[in-house]
């Protein structure tokens, strides 16, 4: 707008205005990049420090010598168990809850209350979720500290992630699609199954992927509900944990070797952090890729 050719006489007022404009633009640009650039530097630094320790053996070996050497296999495996089980619990409940909120709920006080509950569930501090998991699943339900109790805690915590993105996906399906289906005599559920869910699958998938990334990174909720400092597991053993046993987890392992174990060689915690970070960012990048791809071939 202000960059075009000017064919009027520039008054000091206009010049000042123009200068303020370009100054503002650069300041805001700098502010945006002030968050991004140091972060990239830090990530680069982490990878550089981690580099000597990173190898396939690091992923597949169990830790040895009091977690001062070896790899991270038991922690990696534990995180996979926790994520898969929490996903199996949270995905159906979350998707159906979103279906209820978008397809069945009328705009009344009760459903506003549900909305408020979803928002608050997302805002509850992770350590309070840990207390809840300890009180409800470990003690009251009598499951004990275990993979199951930790996964259920993670599932409750990550439910809002799935509800929010599934809901957004359902809401983006045009009303006319539903009306067309109703008009050929389908019931509400038949319409949802045949028209609404297939047309919003990419958004639902994004929500599910984001849940995975969130669950994989959390530490506090699993600390007192099922995560363990150390457990001996054979190299590459896929079935090391039972559902009612405690397990190691990647996030917990990073916390432990960074703060609780003295004398860990420097590269090991860096490498653990890089593996955790890499896994989470990879999962998120997948969600973004799914979204971009699906948006590019959206039919309406």
């Amino acid at each position: 707008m202000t960059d075009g050719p000017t064919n009027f006489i520039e008054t000091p007022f206009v010049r000042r205005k123009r200068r303020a404009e370009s100054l503002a633009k650069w300041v805001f640009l700098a502010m945006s990049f002030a968050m991004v650039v140091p972060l990239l530097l830090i990530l680069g630094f982490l990878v550089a420090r981690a580099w000597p320790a990173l190898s396939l053996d690091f992923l597949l070996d169990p830790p040895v010598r009091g977690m001062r050497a070896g790899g991270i296999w038991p922690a990696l495996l534990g995180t996979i168990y926790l994520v898969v089980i929490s996903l199996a619990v949270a995905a159906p409940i979350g998707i159906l809850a979103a279906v209820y909120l978008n397809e069945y709920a009328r705009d009344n006080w009760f459903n506003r209350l549900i909305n408020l509950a979803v928002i608050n569930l997302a805002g509850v501090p992770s350590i309070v979720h840990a207390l809840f998991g300890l009180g409800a699943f470990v003690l009251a339900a009598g499951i004990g500290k275990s993979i199951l109790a930790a996964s259920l805690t993670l599932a409750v915590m990550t439910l809002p992630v799935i509800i929010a993105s599934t809901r957004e996906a359902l809401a983006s399906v045009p009303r006319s699609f539903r009306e067309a289906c109703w008009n050929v005599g389908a019931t509400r559920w038949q319409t949802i199954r045949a028209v609404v869910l297939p047309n919003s699958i990419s958004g639902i998938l994004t929500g599910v992927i984001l849940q995975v990334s969130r669950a994989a990174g959390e530490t506090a909720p699993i600390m007192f509900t099922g995560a363990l400092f150390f457990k001996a597991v054979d190299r590459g053993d896929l079935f090391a944990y039972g559902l009612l046993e405690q397990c190691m987890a990647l996030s917990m392992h990073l916390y432990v070797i960074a703060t609780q174990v003295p004398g860990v060689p420097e590269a090991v915690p860096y490498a653990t952090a890089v593996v955790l970070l890499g896994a989470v960012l990879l999962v998120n990048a997948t969600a973004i890729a799914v979204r971009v791809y699906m948006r590019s071939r959206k039919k309406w």
Partner: protein
Amino acid sequence: MTEIPPMPAAGNVAAPVPRAPGRPRWAVVGERLLEWIIRLCGISAILFVLGIFYFVFAKAAPILLDKEFSLTEFLFSTKWYPTSEINVRYGTLALTVGTLAVTLLAMLIAVPFGLGAAIFVSEFCGPRLKETLKIVIELLAAIPSVVWGFIGLSVMKTVIEKTTGAPVGVNVLNGGIILALMSVPIIVSISEDALKAVPDSYREAGIALGATRWQLVYKVLLPAAKTGLLAAVLLGVGRAIGETMAVLMATGHAVNVPTSVLDPVRTLTATIAAELGEAPEGSNHYRVLFLIGVLLFTITFVINLAADLVIRGIRRK
């Protein structure tokens, strides 16, 4: 451009329930059943929120009946000696002040940068850069809190010790910077939504009067979007208060009312995370930690409620 009226939610339309003549009975019954399951999942969020409050409060409640325990001391005393043999004291004021100090510093950094970035993304940059920045911000939000804590403990600690000469690099400053980076994404995304919600006619009117984009931002958009921006800040505060692992690792772990940003502190969340493992189940110490959980739940509940009311107020307008 004409405003398209918002579409009513599908639920507001009277449900067409045709009775298909040839449908088998099991299909009809099955569908009923399924719809009840969907309703149950729908209210699950309420059940979980109530459940969280109930289970955390139930574990904390016995301490409130204890004659030795005083709620005033719990809230307003700075003496936190939970494991002392002779003089057990459960005062959380120092922890609350620690939480507030770190949160305040984080917001002092995150609010200007977050708003600046939101303004840049929404008003000043082209579509390609906008997409890229939004993706980067989304990835920033995905970094696990334990990794942030580790960054604080390894990178920031050294940087702070070298630049300020502080004896310990894990302190309010460290935690504040880490928390700022963690809460910037939510501030950016909610603020950007708020700016996007300002009708284009406002912008067009401003441009027609010869305003530059900067004048448009500070004379038209900021006043018009101020409640949405307030909600963004509130949600950022909520995020910062509730954060656990990052502050546990980056703030230095000393129960202390800070007098400068280079003092180590400990927050409410970090105290629970650090001490719950050692407190014997059912002891007073254990119950007090659950009571801190109730306190945190209440604080974040109020903040989220406020943010929601603010956002709802905008939508109604």
